[in-house]
């Protein structure tokens, strides 16, 4: 059973003065997330990430399509006991304190009072808010609010956690802490689905990512493969600048410093280049594989035109 399946969810908006024009915020989306995996939903601002999450949460209704969560229909209210959600830039009742908010939310999620009594302090500790006491939320900093947000998303121990831009507005320290939190959630076996436009976060945490752009899914891939798969290069350094002429078309970005030449070579060209260097009588100094980045994958996908299904 998948943790989440998205089956053709689509969202159109009527716009314009007479509501005649239609804007498609999300083109029919097909996606599946496995249980236990950490899935990153990447895309620039306005790509449709938040729309997708809002559709899944039942905040807005799709023009067509459906979805399942843990095998049940996504709008089934009972399934919400097993999922947690952190919206983008969340705002909570500022007249409540953190424990009060969590107690209220936990109650709504169906937790019994004995359960709440010991889980709430535990989760506050886990997100690093053990000392807030009864301070009202209106006095919390942005970073603290974000942590409260994560706390309310996990207090009822859900199997699936969905987060919309969990790092937004945080300083590097805050981001680091949130990353650690997510990592620990991942380690405890939860399925995590989060959207972001910060690629390094996705790279660090995710098992798989999907790239979405202008309402369309552009590509889905396993992070590890994307990093070391096709398109990676090696950096070759040799001595013997005259050899460069013969190799000019096989190498990229050559730099010459005296007799030393440094250039990048595509993976499938590597053997041929090394052979040619030997023939030219150049002295090989080093060969270093270069890892591709998620960034390159991302940029490549967002410039593609066709839609992939995964």
């Amino acid at each position, binding site marked *: 059973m998948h943790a989440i399946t998205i089956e053709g969810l689509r969202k159109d908006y009527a716009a314009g003065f007479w509501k005649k024009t239609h804007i498609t915020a999300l083109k029919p989306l097909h996606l599946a997330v496995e249980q236990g995996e950490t899935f990153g939903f990447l895309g620039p601002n306005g790509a449709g990430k938040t729309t997708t999450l*809002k559709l899944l*949460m*039942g*905040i*807005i*209704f799709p023009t067509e399509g459906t979805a399942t969560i843990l095998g049940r229909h996504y709008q089934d*209210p*009972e399934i*919400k*006991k097993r*999922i*947690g*959600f*952190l*919206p983008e*830039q*969340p*705002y*909570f*009742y500022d*007249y*409540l304190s953190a424990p009060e908010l969590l107690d*209220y*939310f936990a*109650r*709504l*999620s*169906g937790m019994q009072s004995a359960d709440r009594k010991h889980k709430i302090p535990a989760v506050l500790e886990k997100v690093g808010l053990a000392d807030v006491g009864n301070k009202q939320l209106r006095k919390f900093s942005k970073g603290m609010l974000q942590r409260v*947000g994560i706390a*309310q*998303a996990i207090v009822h121990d859900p199997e699936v956690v969905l987060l919309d831009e969990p790092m937004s507005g945080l300083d590097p320290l805050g981001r680091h802490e949130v990353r650690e939190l997510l990592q620990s959630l991942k380690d405890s076996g939860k399925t995590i689905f989060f959207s972001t436009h910060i690629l390094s976060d996705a790279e660090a945490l995710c098992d798989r990512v999907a790239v979405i752009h202008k309402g369309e899914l552009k590509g889905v891939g396993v992070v590890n493969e994307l990093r070391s798969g096709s398109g990676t290069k090696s950096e070759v350094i040799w001595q013997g600048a005259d050899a460069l002429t013969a190799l000019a078309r096989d190498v990229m970005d050559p730099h010459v410093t005296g007799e030393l030449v440094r250039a990048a070579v595509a993976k499938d060209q590597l053997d041929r280049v090394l052979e040619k260097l030997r023939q030219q009588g150049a002295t090989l100094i080093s060969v270093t594989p270069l890892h591709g980045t998620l960034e390159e994958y991302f940029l490549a996908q967002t410039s593609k035109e066709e839609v992939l299904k995964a």
Partner: protein
Amino acid sequence: MISRLTAITLNTFREAVRDRVLYNLIVFVLILLASAPLFSQISIDIERLMLVNLGLSAISIFGVIIAIFIGIGLVAKEIEKKTLYTILARPVRRWEFVVGKYLGLVLTLVTNAAFMTIGFFGALLLYTRPLTRSDASLLVAIYFILLEFLIITALTLLFSSFSSPIFSALFAFALFVIGTFSEDLKNFASMSHGISRWGASAASWVIPNFASLNVISQVAHKQPVGGSLVLFNTAYALLYTATVTLGAVLIFERRNLK
């Protein structure tokens, strides 16, 4: 379901309290206390009359104002501030949310009115002769005021579920005023012809009837209130409120939130 409803109701009540809404009670008490020396210049009977008129009218007006001011934001504020998102991500049904908020506001209004009633009877004891049997009709008048609250809160909730706070306030206030003259509307209907007659008739059924819920003048003059009127007013208020609340739920259930 009950547990979720209760949680939302109590939280809404808590919000009102922390919003310092109940401070209006202080204003109420001050008004009663300040006016008493003025009344005491006049004879005893008039004093009671004016105290009852003033006290009951204040309970009614303060309550309606609070109902509208808080009611307009009941749903709209949650949508605007996005506090709703994390609620809907939980097993809460949309209708539970609407009804819970409604009950929370009603609870606030009833509590407010309860305190005011105590203060009012206190003032009555203090400044006029001891309470008699006939003063039970004062409680009936207050009960009718509570029924008014049920209706006006439901209407404000209805508007809050689809329109902005300012318009909600305008519509709710307009309906309150027109509803006070609903029996006159019926008179207009019976005296006119054609389309105006039809329109005025239809309106007199649809707009809330506050006229029959206002027995303040009556009880001020120590006239008793009939039992059947109590019965039918209760039935009317409950049925009308249920209609409006159901309407609010239906609208909210289908609404795409921002």
